């Protein structure tokens, strides 16, 4: 029987701010960008009763909670805290699938003999996060990924919930169909049209009937409603790409303005590649224009790399070809990871000249934070930090 824990940090960015600044504790805190254009990046539990949620436009949040304290995001601090959290996960299992900076699936099936029951492991992880990092986390425990995720959500804040396999169907039965994995507004609408409001309603139908109404996803819906979800926890190492992207506070036009952002993204990706001991040859640049259209451009290098400057130069070539002088909301740099070649080599590959420099930069960043040392263009444009809303772990999983 599989044992999967879904750990989700509570109001992660806001909790980091409250931890680092005692005067914010117990107060309604909004971590967010520009008051007009920006969005809420995180909302502390104290401000949630006023209806403030992350991703909500700042202007609206301020209307609903004018008394809230607004804090500018400090992404390097969150990245650091995230790393510490994941380090705690690693004490219990190598099978960790990160969903974002503050959320992950852990397969602890094989850890039970060493550390006790899955619920006990979840308790220990949450306790260590609380005592060592001073941050609250919630956990859901189940034998399927989507059930664990629902359970952690229901356990929030600062709680945990276990759904035993024999309880799964009953647990799900009362929940709205929108909780099912893969059910978006459209499917939800269609399900409701058939009179299926809760997951229990779906579970009562037979799969042939669901097939006739919902085609290929009918079977999938039936399985999920019975708590059947065969998806495995896919560890980060098996991820196919590593990327970083930023939504700008204001749309940007022109190479001059974009370069520092692309540079910072390239350096972030490279740092993460090196930390994971990975390299890739296929470099991709993602551009989202002011009209929300997205283009991606990719190119393949001769040799796999984990060097930020190489990524930057490559991304810049792509940018020059794809930019066309249009205003951009977002840029993203990502690297597709090389699969390990089956044939072993006789000679260990000579490290490229950049390896030494990168190792030193990594050590400085580890010790003093990623802002301690950076390139002049990034420092000048302040692209590495407050200028944008960034997402650090947009890791594409192999599709199952």
């Amino acid at each position: 029987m599989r044992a999967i824990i879904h750990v989700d940090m509570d109001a992660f960015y806001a909790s980091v701010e409250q931890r680092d600044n005692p005067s914010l504790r117990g107060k309604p805190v909004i971590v967010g960008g520009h008051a007009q254009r920006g969005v809420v990046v995180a909302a502390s539990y104290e401000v949630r009763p006023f209806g403030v949620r992350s991703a909500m436009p700042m202007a609206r949040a301020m209307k609903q909670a004018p008394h809230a304290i607004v804090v500018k995001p400090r992404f390097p601090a969150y990245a650091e805290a995230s790393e510490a959290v994941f380090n705690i996960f690693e004490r219990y299992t190598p099978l960790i699938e990160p969903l974002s900076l503050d959320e992950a699936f852990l397969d602890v099936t094989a850890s039970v003999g060493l550390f006790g029951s899955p619920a006990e492991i979840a308790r220990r992880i949450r306790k260590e996060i609380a005592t060592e990092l001073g941050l609250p986390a919630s956990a859901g425990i189940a034998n399927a990924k989507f059930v664990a995720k629902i359970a952690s959500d229901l356990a929030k804040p600062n709680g945990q919930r276990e759904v035993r396999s024999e309880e799964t169907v009953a647990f799900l039965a009362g929940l709205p169909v929108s909780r099912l994995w893969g059910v978006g507004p459209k499917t939800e609408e269609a399900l409701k049209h058939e009179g299926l409001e809760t997951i229990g309603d779906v579970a009562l139908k037979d799969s042939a009937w669901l097939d006739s109404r919902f085609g290929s996803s009918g079977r999938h819906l039936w399985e999920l409603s019975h708590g059947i979800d065969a998806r495995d926890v896919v560890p980060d190492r098996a991820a196919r790409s590593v990327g970083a992207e930023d939504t700008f506070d204001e749309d940007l036009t022109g190479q001059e303005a974009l370069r520092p952002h692309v540079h910072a993204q390239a350096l972030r990706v490279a740092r993460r590649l090196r930390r994971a001991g990975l390299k890739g040859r296929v470099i991709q640049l993602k551009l989202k224009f002011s009209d929300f259209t997205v283009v991606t451009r990719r190119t393949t290098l001769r040799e796999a790399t984990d060097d930020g400057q190489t990524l930057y130069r490559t991304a810049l070539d792509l940018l020059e070809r794809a930019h066309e002088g249009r205003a951009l909301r977002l840029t993203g740099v990502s690297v597709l990871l090389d699969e390990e070649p089956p044939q072993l080599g006789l000679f260990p590959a000579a490290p490229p000249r950049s390896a030494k420099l990168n190792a030193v930069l990594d050590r400085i960043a580890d010790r003093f934070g990623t802002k301690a040392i950076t390139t002049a263009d990034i420092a000048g444009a302040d692209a590495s930090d407050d200028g944008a809303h960034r997402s650090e772990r947009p890791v594409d999983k192999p599709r199952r």
Partner: protein
Amino acid sequence: MEFRIAADELKKALYRAQGIVERKTTMPILANVLVTANKGGVTVTAFDLDIGVVSEHPAEVTKPGAVTLSAKYVFDIVQNLPDAQVTLKKLANNYVDISSGSAHFKIVGMAAEEYPKLPKEESAPLVQISGNILLEMIKKTQFAISSDETRYILNGVFFEPQANGKVRMVSTDGHRLSLIERELPGDFKLKSGVIIPRKGLMELKRLLDEAPDAECHLGFAENSALFKKPGLTMVMRLIDGQFPEYQRVIPKEGEKVVLVPKTRLLESLKRIALLSADKSNAVRIGLAQNKLIITASNPDLGEAKDELELAYRGSDITVGFNARYLMDVLGVTDTDEVSFELGDEHSPGVLHGPGDRSFTAVVMPMRV
């Protein structure tokens, strides 16, 4: 220029040029050979800026001179002449009349002055060598030369004279390595080894194959090699760079050693590799009590297994290999049995003659 020559002689000269002239080149004249007639006879020169071959042939020269002609077309013509003799005569504007018996060809040539000059390598200290031994050394190393142009250092064979009158030749593509050491006495006056490029080595092999017993000389100067045999001179530019420290990757003695019948193993690899996945030639080689087991599996096709009986009492082990790499070695092995040494799944396999490491091949495993 006008001379009369035996068609077979001209054919031989042009055959030697075929592997050297460039067909696709930005310099059209490199697709040509330089034909020079003087009192002593005729020379035919082929040069691709890296490798040059000058072939000397007896001919009845009535008017000395020189011209360049398409190596390919003239070779085709000479192979289809009606008579055993052929006459070449330069006309105006570098046209050349080729006549033999009743047949006449009027061929467009290019001016001899435009042909690039071969480097002069008279300073090279020449060493008389056995063509047969050099030929053997080439045959037993050429298969492991890398064809990956990004690793140009490995695009040739390392030629390294030893202190004891022997010469070592080593090739590797980074996945496997072949080393041979043979008696090739003489002072090459080399401070260290040199890297002979693949194309030059293949041409050298062709020239040696013509008459392995002929008196041969080999020498090195600056960054080129010089090879001479009666009626023929070859120069080639060497690969400039540092060959990897090959000694470090040759294991001293494997933990698990078996003596395998060569032909049996070769045939077995051939049939089992038919079922390797994605044309990777990946096979698993297992050692168990007194047998060697070769297996392969292909998710689309199925599985294959073969067994060889042999003397083995060590612990069981299975290592993945590219069957092609092993077959390349076995294909040039002269002995009936071959000593096969294995370490673990990540250690190289070593093949050499029983009790004789003078020809040793090292093959890295595959993850299977």
